[in-house]
């Protein structure tokens, strides 16, 4: 054994021997196993082997699986392409309006998961403002093509964020070098810029693909008679009360999402060949070819209009008497929405509980995985695993695992499901903060005789306050806008706003749906503002949508 290994082993023994730390570790591991692993196993083991083998005989399920895969491919390609476009535009200093594009592109991240689909029905549906009233055409937005457009707009921001990160890290001197060697602009773009962005593009595609597969909110609103796995699980429950069928369908959905997730985590993210010299390159980026510049700006402007229409449509819907027929302004929808405003309060309560849980568990687990403890990789895996699980899977899992316990029927079951589904965001935010903390501060505390837990409380907790607030905010915002888990765990007395809105959309009560969604948006943006005041950073709700 080398001296270094002895030293490390010593540290492991020292930390493992700290009883407080060991107990915390056991506690955290227990909580993760209970709320992440156990529901997942309940789903997978609920149908029998015979049920699994019978899947290929169900015409409808095979159709749904086929459709889900087709949507995954086309929406991922289009969303990644648009994301690449925006990433390119925002990393080039000579593209006009790049800040504007970047801010606009963030907007879909904060929209409730059904909002893009809802707004596009208002804009481009049979009674759509643009298609029907302005252009006088008969358009049918329901089906795969409508869903394709909606998912592209809803998920390209994820691709943009990931690809931007890679493009920003790319060293402009490589582009200069290529140009000096005589390459023309297009070759530079192809062989340098895009080549360097390739791992980012691959990573973006995988993340977007998981989101598309898991997308429930948009699909349930706009897919029409087009069966998809994410919605099929709900229809099984909703119409037939077929829990076994629902479990089978979400299990089918799990296979590709976990595969994509593992691919992203253990393959793509490890071969990011960002420039060797690292960050801090001060060389100016070379000018963008004018033709390309024009093209990029035009396309980004078009997509920006599509995004603004999402917000415009919903707000306009809330003030229009009868959409498509009577365009006079009215406040009557707000009266109906006000009648349901208590559902928003329920959403807030659940969001607060979920936010606190995500924050606390995320910070504790991040602290534990930063220690040289045995099995810390397992803990890390459990904390990021929910990122691979579609919302409908978590929903069915919690129904199977906890509905029959005292947790069932209370708001705690919903809050717990949401908290642990969003755990990867809280955990990763905390882990990133921990990496920034100078190790010597901790060593100083230890030398002064502090125990492991004392170190956590006195050194890390104050420093992790920002991580905690961020994790809370992300989890809160996503909890109050969630539908995919909510629809499985809703119960009387815990009716939340998104559930009511979804029902209103489906029952053609568009005005009140628009009004309630507007209130939900105000809540979301208020919490973003508050978080910004507290930690001085804008929250990114980047993660698997659904």
């Amino acid at each position, binding site marked *: 054994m080398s001296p270094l290994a002895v030293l490390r082993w010593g540290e492991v023994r020292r930390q493992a021997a700290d009883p407080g730390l060991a107990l915390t570790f056991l506690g955290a591991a227990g909580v993760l196993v209970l709320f992440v692993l156990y529901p997942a196993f309940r789903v997978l083991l609920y149908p029998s082997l015979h049920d699994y083998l019978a899947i290929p005989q*169900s*015409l*409808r399920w095979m*159709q749904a699986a086929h459709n889900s895969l087709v949507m995954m491919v086309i929406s991922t390609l289009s969303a990644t392409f648009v994301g690449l476009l925006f990433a390119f535009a925002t990393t080039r200093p000579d593209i006009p309006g790049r800040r504007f594009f970047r801010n606009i592109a963030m907007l879909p991240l904060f929209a409730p998961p059904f909002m893009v689909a809802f707004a596009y029905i208002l804009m481009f*549906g*049979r*009674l759509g403002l643009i298609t029907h009233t302005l252009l006088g055409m*008969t358009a*049918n937005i*329901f089906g795969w093509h409508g869903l394709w457009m909606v998912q592209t707009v809803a998920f390209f921001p994820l691709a943009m964020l990931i690809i931007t990160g890679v493009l920003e890290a790319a060293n402009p001197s490589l582009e200069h070098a290529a140009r000096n060697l005589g390459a023309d602009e297009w070759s530079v773009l192809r062989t340098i810029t895009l080549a360097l962005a390739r791992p980012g593009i691959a990573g973006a595609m995988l993340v977007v693909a998981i989101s598309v597969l898991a997308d429930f909110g948009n699909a349930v609103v706009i897919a*029409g*008679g087009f*069966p998809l796995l994410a*919605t099929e699980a709900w*229809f099984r*429950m*909703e*119409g*037939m*009360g*077929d*829990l076994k069928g629902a479990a089978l369908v979400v299990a089918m959905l799990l296979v590709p999402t976990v595969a994509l997730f593992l691919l992203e985590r253990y393959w793509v993210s490890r071969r990011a060949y960002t420039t060797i010299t690292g960050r801090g390159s001060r060389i100016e980026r070379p000018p963008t070819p004018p033709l390309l510049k024009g093209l990029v700006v035009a396309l980004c402007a078009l997509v920006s209009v599509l995004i603004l229409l999402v917000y415009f449509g919903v707000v306009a819907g809330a003030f229009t008497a*009868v959409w*498509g*027929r*009577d365009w006079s302004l009215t406040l009557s929808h707000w009266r109906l929405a006000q*009648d349901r405003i208590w559902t928003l309060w329920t959403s807030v*309560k659940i969001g*607060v*509980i979920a936010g*606190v849980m995500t924050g*606390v568990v995320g910070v504790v687990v991040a602290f534990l995985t930063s220690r040289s403890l045995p099995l810390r990789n397992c803990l890390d895996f459990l904390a990021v695993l929910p990122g691979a699980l579609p919302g409908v899977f978590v929903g069915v899992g919690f*129904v199977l695992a906890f*509905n*029959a316990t005292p947790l*069932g*029927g209370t*708001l705690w079951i919903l809050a717990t499901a949401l908290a642990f589904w969003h755990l990867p965001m809280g955990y990763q935010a905390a882990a990133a903060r921990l990496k920034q903390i100078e190790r010597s501060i901790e060593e100083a505390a230890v030398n002064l005789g502090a125990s492991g837990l004392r170190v956590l*409380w006195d050194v890390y*907790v*104050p420093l992790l*306050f920002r991580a*905690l607030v961020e994790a809370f905010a992300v989890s809160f915002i996503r909890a109050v806008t969630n539908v995919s888990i909510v629809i499985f765990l*809703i*119960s*009387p*007395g815990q*009716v939340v706003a998104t559930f*009511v809105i979804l*029902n*209103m959309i*489906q*029952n*053609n009560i568009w005005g009140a749906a628009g009004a309630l969604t507007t209130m939900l948006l105000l809540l979301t943006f208020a919490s973003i503002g508050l978080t910004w005041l507290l930690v001085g950073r804008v929250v990114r709700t980047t993660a698997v949508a659904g």
Partner: protein
Amino acid sequence: MMRRMWIGWLVVALLVGVVPPATAQQQKIVVYSALPDLETSLIHREFTRRTGIPVEALSVAAAGTLQARIRAEKDRPRADIFVGGSRDFHIPLAREGLLVKYRSPVAAEAKISPAYLDPDGYWHGWYLGALSIIINTERWDRELAPRGVRKPATWDDLTRAEFKGHFVMPSPVTTGGGYIFVAVQIFRLGEDRAWAYLKALNANASQYTPTAPGTITLLERGEAIVAMMWAHEAIGARILRAAPLEVTVPPDTGFEIGAVSIIKGGPNPEGARAYVDFLMTRTPQDINARYGFRYPVRADVGVPTGATPFGQLKFVKYDLEWAIQNQARIRERWTREIGR
């Protein structure tokens, strides 16, 4: 130090703030309602005003979901009442022993026809509905009328080639209305001819909506021209939202008896009985007729606006027992042979 304490207290305050304080109100009842939110909340507001019993309701316009919930919760029932949805959804629960018998004195007092009440007392019918053919007149006048197409008046008319891609109905797999429609075809034609009919109809169908209101939504927006759906939903959309819809109840149609039942082991059985009694009175049936356009079972409540009196409709001979016994098999066959 101060900051840390502040955070700690903040967390505690938030957690305490979300736990509701125990209140000394009259004990609430929990209701699973398969009726839309609007009618449900109006009826419940009235119920609470009369009895002082607060209601916590979950409205899901799909009786199958609620039926499934009640099954799933049979070891720890959370709701007291299952209201709405055809008796077809209540009877299986009664047979599985998940409902409680009750005979409302109000029903006897009001002389409600025994046809609408379970002879065993597990469910009380309190509204009626009939299946119908609905067209979107706006699109009809623009697209089909100029071609001289005749309006559909019978179930058989729906299979005419002019309606290809223009027809919608609720899914027989996930909704009660869709299932009753399929059963009606079987009672009308016999099983073999019924499947041939359904396949011909399938050639015209643009989609089968997973929830019943979904069909009316599509038709109202003009996403389809012809639909099969409960007449009252269309009449409601026409009157409340000025939707351009026209309703025809064809001969040999099917109907639902909208029921209410008490869930066995629910938290508030006394409140549940008061609820059933209340639904047998005039007020809720009147609200349901006014806002839901469903036929009341009480003779002293008026027929909903725009509806043909129930007695004048021509119904197929509906074998309820057969329809319940064969429910799983028919849905299975639909999934296998129609596949959507």
